């Protein structure tokens, strides 16, 4: 029988600056807060801007939102030295027994930043249509192998001359069938799809059948024996 976990699931949210990581967290909080015990850890380039934004959005008890300063090393803080993020998560778990899900937002970084599997159990990589239709094709570990790829702000696609459906399609192709969701906060169906994915992943985690995968900073490769 699989071992069932004793702590909250940790879900990382990575992706370039401005793609909507904080908004996604706000969305998840507002949609899931009645059903789940939630906590949030933000990683900012500059102090606690994202944490402040989320706190002022009123979607979650402000004390359940913790900010980690990264010393201008957002990539390090989620990958090679996860100490301060781990401490922030452990503090949330200590302060809120029964916590079920901790959302960890990476500081906006580049396409190569992914979470260490020692820090999060699953991760979402967020792109947006405004970043350009070709970003998916550029690839990177997060795009190719995060547990979920979100193509955000699909409602803006006509204004930036991007074919959102094609972006999702190319993402799916680049990900060997791993899930991709085109998201617009104005499209309730897409919002529900993201929430459903989070809840399904959490159910799998709680059942002890979820395995943390490392998207890895490197291109996939194999060693011949």
């Amino acid at each position: 029988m699989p071992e069932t976990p004793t702590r909250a699931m940790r879900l990382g949210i990575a992706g370039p600056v401005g793609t909507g990581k904080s908004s996604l967290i706000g969305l998840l909080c507002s949609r899931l807060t009645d059903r789940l015990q939630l906590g949030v850890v933000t990683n900012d380039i500059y102090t606690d801007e994202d944490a402040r934004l989320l706190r002022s959005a009123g979607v979650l008890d402000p004390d359940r939102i913790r900010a980690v300063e990264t010393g201008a090393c957002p990539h390090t803080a989620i990958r090679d030295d996860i100490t301060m993020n781990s401490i922030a998560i452990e503090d949330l778990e200590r302060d809120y027994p029964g916590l079920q899900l901790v959302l960890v937002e990476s500081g906006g970084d580049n396409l190569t930043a992914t979470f260490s599997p020692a820090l999060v159990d699953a991760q979402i990589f967020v792109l947006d249509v405004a970043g350009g239709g070709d970003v998916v094709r550029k690839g990177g570990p997060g795009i190719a192998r995060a547990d979920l790829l979100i193509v955000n702000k699909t409602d803006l696609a006509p204004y930036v001359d991007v074919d959102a459906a094609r972006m999702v399609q190319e993402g799916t192709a680049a990900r060997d069938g791993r899930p991709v969701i085109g998201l617009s906060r104005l499209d309730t169906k897409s919002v529900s799809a993201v929430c459903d994915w989070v809840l399904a992943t959490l159910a799998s985690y709680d059942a002890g059948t979820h395995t943390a995968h490392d998207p890895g900073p490197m291109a996939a490769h194999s060693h011949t024996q």
Partner: protein
Amino acid sequence: MMSGGALLLGDARLPTGGHTQSAGLEPALLTGLSPASIPGFIVSRLRTCVRVDAGTAVVGLRLLYAGAPLDPVVDAWCARTPSEVVQAASIEAGRGYLRLHQRLTGFATATPALPRPLAVAALAHSWDLSAAELARIICHDDVQSVCSAALKLTPCDPVDTVSWAVAAGDEADRVVTEVQGLDDPDDIPAAAAPEMELWQHAHGNASRRLFRA
């Protein structure tokens, strides 16, 4: 020869969250320290708060080797660290070392929180470091924290920051010589830099900061 444990503790790649610390440089620059004064700032710290931390670490190490409780040396460090903001930042940085230590060896302290120099001393104890090695590490880490933060905070050439660290070597040697034999909490240096303390104290409320302290 430096031991393996000493080299690990002196290496910024040790996962303890060191990259979130600027050793007081960010508060100093925000308050008006000119980048040209950074080499002098490094020496100021070695003369004052780093001496306190190095002495605290050495006395803590001796108490740990003797199996004695750390409370008297925690009290001594607190008395030498008047700002609650600086105390909290050091304790937070200490948690990074305690967490690593706990994960490696199951180490648990009687006191839930230790200031950074004592959290480092506890790992140094596990890894059989000498007092001189520990004092050297405390100095080295502070100097390098300033140098690496400087690269983020102010335009400079990394070669320059290395030259600052090299230039601070004599002062660091003096700190090591002065504190390596200490064993009484009352004898821990208490040298203070009041202006720097106020800078760091104000950092607790600073907005748009890159570094925790």
